[in-house]
């Protein structure tokens, strides 16, 4: 469903649903993902990992492994550059390169089970496996700490002796696991609570959850004798992989070519390196290409989940339902190294609501878990779970419709966010109204079911992107994108180029270039590709149009101002010229005679990404004797600006909702007493399967196209994972008859809460 408001633009391609240019390869098995590359002489790499949650590495003895026939190289952290410094933009923030390196191969200490200690390259997988067992690592096991509040305790085992809490004045005297304390706020919170008619409060917990991409991390690295190297890998950004590998191995960027493979899902989790520097270090040692592919167990043990969190929230409310003040404390797990997305949790928590006084505190806390990585709207879903649950409690206490309560408090254009941005082009109210008017919300709740609603916010970002548009000699067009296509972006890039050039979509193809073939681009993340890389595509296409017009004017010997570009052809508006339109095909065929090949590349740093808002409604039923929940109906509405390819936008809403439902009901990292992960596999991690879900209806709200984007696009990928935790939780709480504040809402927890 589209809410219209096309702003008078007559769009032919944007808004349609063509087949994606890479589609056939992906339905025939021809698409090459990270593990699908084979090179002559290629070796198999394997990684030796810590069996302990926390231990000092006393000694690594690889002599027996190296003596095994077929073993070509072994590397440890000493093979990484010791003087590598600097920061790299990736995922949810900046991480010191030394920490990324130490996460790829442990230095001195292992900080979680599965932490990489050494790696081996051998001629056969079986030999590599045997060699791993022959690498002897001597550990001194140290006390461990897993949970966030336990890690914050004064007597907790400290992971990093040099970590002193940032953001505390004066600087603390003792090292601790609290990497930083963040404070944010405005207004007179105490006064708001003093004047409140009603105070709602609660304490919430969410579990660490994994992105759950189906493709395990995989790469092939090949070192050249002159240092020039090539890496094939599936990632969310070939340029960021190049930058990290270069710094960790102390190489010039121009010596590394990263060729992006197709990527089998990422959701933020493939914005950093785990294998690539290790594989290249191995290749450097033995001069042969090395392939490393993680097992699923390794993915769970050693690649980024997102933070589990403990959250306290208080709302000060007037009796008419207006929220006048709020306090929020977020404690986020960072994993073994600092850098949880707690900042983003603070910034997004109340972003849907116009609340005058806010006092927000966040703690970034390390513990003996894998280092967190970005996961779809990093930091936002947990904070939203707490806030949207509290608002649901408020609606119950006031006897108000939960949508009406949210409309009453919703941000509108001109409102000021806590982080300093002014709300612009926001369609939250329209999205709430769209849900309210939806067939789902209008239908009565089925017998034995309950309904929950929740809203969510994500910033969406812009940033650095590059794209090229090449006109072929026959008038067809190739778009060169700088971002891996994680969910159909080749289609939207080709569509925006086709729209700009006035071509049918079938005449435009799109490819994703390696690091040597296009200008720099940031990661495929932050819901930025359609917006920022799309802007580069459109600007490149506009340059091509300008060039085509110039060539037409030269052909006609008229002023270029008298040339119009329409439907893929130049027409002359000079009444003195009796000429027929020149199609792109005609112009391209004569390009050699009018100045040479027709192509344009644009690199830019896109500012002005518009935020997105989502509202979800969930109906579910619970088996009262077993506590098992089943989602029976689900609708997701979102402020999308303008949908370039509506089917893929719907897909983002549906996929995000499904991930959020899994987060709410079943997914979690389960640790035993010894600090070891007990469910490092799909079997016991329990992501939603097809029979767990109903159809997920979507409403694309196009009431406020983004004026900063040529076709009005807003980022859409991340918002949809923000509302489901509370939408599900609110429905469960309604049936249980009390607030369910701890995720996941497993059958045992629900049954216990039902008093059975």
């Amino acid at each position, binding site marked *: 469903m589209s809410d219209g408001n096309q702003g008078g633009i007559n769009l032919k391609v944007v808004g349609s649903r063509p087949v994606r240019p890479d589609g056939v390869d992906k339905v025939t098995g021809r698409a090459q993902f990270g593990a699908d590359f084979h090179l002559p002489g290629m070796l198999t790499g394997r990684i030796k990992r810590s069996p302990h949650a926390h231990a000092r590495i006393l000694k690594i003895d690889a002599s027996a492994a190296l003596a095994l026939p077929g073993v070509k190289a072994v590397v440890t952290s000493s093979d990484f550059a010791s003087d590598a410094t600097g920061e790299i933009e990736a995922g949810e923030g900046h991480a010191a390169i030394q920490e990324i390196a130490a996460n790829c191969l442990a230095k001195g200490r292992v900080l979680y089970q599965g932490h990489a200690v050494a790696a081996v390259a051998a001629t056969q997988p079986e030999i590599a496996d045997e060699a791993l067992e022959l690498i002897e690592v001597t550990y001194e096991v140290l006390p461990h700490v897993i949970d966030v509040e336990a890690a914050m305790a004064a007597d907790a085992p400290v992971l990093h002796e040099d970590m002193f809490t940032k953001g505390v004045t004066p600087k603390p005297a003792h090292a601790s696991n609290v990497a930083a304390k963040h404070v944010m706020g405005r207004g007179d919170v105490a006064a708001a609570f003093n004047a409140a008619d009603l105070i709602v409060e609660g304490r919430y917990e969410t579990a660490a959850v994994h992105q759950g991409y189906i493709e395990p991390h995989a790469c092939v690295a090949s070192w050249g004798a002159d240092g020039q190297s090539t890496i094939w890998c599936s990632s969310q950004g070939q340029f960021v992989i190049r930058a990290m590998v270069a710094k960790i191995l102390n190489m010039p960027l121009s010596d590394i070519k990263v060729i992006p493979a197709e990527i089998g899902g990422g959701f933020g989790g493939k914005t950093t390196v785990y294998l690539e520097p290790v594989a290249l270090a191995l290749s450097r040692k033995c001069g042969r290409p090395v392939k490393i592919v993680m097992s699923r167990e390794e993915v769970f043990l050693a690649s980024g989940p997102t933070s589990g969190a403990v959250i306290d929230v208080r709302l000060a409310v007037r009796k008419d339902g207006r929220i006048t003040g709020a306090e929020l404390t977020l404690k986020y797990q960072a994993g073994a190294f600092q850098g949880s997305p707690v900042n983003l949790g603070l910034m997004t928590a109340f972003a849907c609501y116009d609340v005058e006084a806010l006092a927000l505190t966040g703690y970034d806390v390390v513990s003996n878990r894998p280092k967190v990585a970005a996961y779809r709207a990093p930091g936002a879903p947990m904070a939203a779970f707490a806030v949207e649950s509290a608002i649901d409690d408020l609606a119950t206490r006031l006897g108000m419709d939960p949508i009406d309560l949210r409309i009453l408090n919703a941000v509108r254009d001109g409102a000021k966010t806590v982080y300093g941005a002014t709300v612009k082009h926001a369609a939250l109210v329209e999205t709430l109204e769209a849900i309210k008017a939806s067939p789902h919300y209008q239908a009565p709740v089925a017998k034995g079911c309950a309904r929950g609603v929740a809203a969510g916010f994500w910033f969406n970002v812009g940033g650095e992107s590059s794209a090229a548009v090449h006109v072929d000699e026959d008038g067809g067009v190739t778009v060169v994108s700088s971002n891996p296509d994680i969910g159909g972006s080749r289609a939207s890039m080709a569509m925006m180029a086709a729209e700009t050039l006035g071509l049918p979509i079938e005449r435009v193809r799109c490819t994703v270039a390696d690091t040597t073939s296009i200008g720099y681009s940031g990661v495929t993340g932050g819901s930025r590709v359609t917006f920022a890389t799309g802007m580069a595509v459109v600007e490149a296409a506009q340059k091509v149009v300008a060039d085509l017009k110039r060539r037409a004017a030269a052909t006609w010997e008229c002023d270029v101002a008298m040339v119009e570009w329409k439907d893929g052809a130049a027409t002359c508006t000079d009444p003195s010229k009796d000429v027929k339109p020149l199609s792109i095909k005609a112009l391209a065929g004569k390009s050699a005679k009018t100045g040479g090949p027709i192509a344009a590349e644009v690199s830019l740093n896109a500012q002005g990404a518009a935020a997105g808002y989502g509202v979800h409604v969930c109906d579910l039923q619970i088996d009262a004797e*077993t*506590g*098992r929940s089943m989602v029976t109906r689900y609708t997701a509405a979102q402020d999308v600006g303008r949908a370039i390819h509506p089917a893929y936008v719907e897909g983002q809403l549906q996929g995000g909702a499904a991930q959020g439902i899994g987060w709410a009901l079943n997914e979690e990292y389960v640790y035993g007493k010894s600090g070891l992960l007990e469910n490092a596999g799909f079997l*016991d991690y*329990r992501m939603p*399967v097809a029979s*767990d879900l109903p159809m997920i209806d979507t409403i694309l709200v196009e009431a406020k196209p983004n004026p900063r984007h040529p076709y009005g696009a807003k980022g859409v990928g991340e918002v949809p994972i923000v509302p489901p935790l509370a939408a599900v939780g609110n429905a469960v709480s309604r049936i249980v008859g009390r607030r369910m504040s701890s995720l996941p809402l497993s059958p*045992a927890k629900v049954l216990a809460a039902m008093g059975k």
Partner: protein
Amino acid sequence: MSAVDYLAPSSVADAVRALHAAGPAARLMAGGTDLLVQMRGGRAKPKVVIDLKRIPALTGVRQEAGGFVIGAATSGAMLGEHAALKAAWPGVVEAANLIGSTQVQGRASLGGNLCNASPAADSVPALIAAGAVCVIEGPAGVRELAVEHVQTGPGKTSLSADEILVAFRLPVRPARSGDAYLRLIPRTEMDIAVVGAGVSVALDSAGICTAARVSVGAVAPTCLLVEAAGAALVGTKVDEAALSKVEVAVAAACRPISDKRGTAEYRTKVASVLARRAAVIAKERASA
């Protein structure tokens, strides 16, 4: 994974000989859906894998003297497609068909499910409730053993190292009898049972229960035959009072652990609930 020899004997005798020759380095494979996972995770490191699926006696379903003989390596999918078996022992078939995905159904077998000796094996409570008997062959010959006597603990069975489970015998289905199996998993599919319960009942013409067997899984080191629960149904119309007694008997028999899949308390509660529900379904089937 180091070198593994793959053997695919075509007779039980050949398989017994191969097993005897290879000793503890050998693992028998039916569907392989547990064994390959264990090999992949390094928890099983066999030197010899003996594939049983090429032995005619181990695959397929035969009707004999009114009962059924099910080859131990017969896949769940084949059981589900056997109309007569499904009509006679719906509980056994539905339990077998709950194991894993469609893909796993194409491979996983009753024999493998039993001999993998997981207390959470879905088909085992249903087989126990049905009164199924194992046909076991070894160097010393053939013997028969009730299913409830096979598992002795997690991963352990009473079969000796050189014996092979060849087939299951399901008895003649009495008139006015029925069976059912239910399990609890957090998702709708793909999980290991947190709790499972199988019930088989026979009624007389007046609807009075004349025989009943109740078995529960994932609540003790092995799947349990809860004789007291069966006894609670005999002589009743499987009414509320009798079902309450089943719940009490099942709860009393449970000795579960708390683990990543569920707490002991939860398992005990839900085992009672599932046993009652399965008894109601079994009774409905018996009355139909």
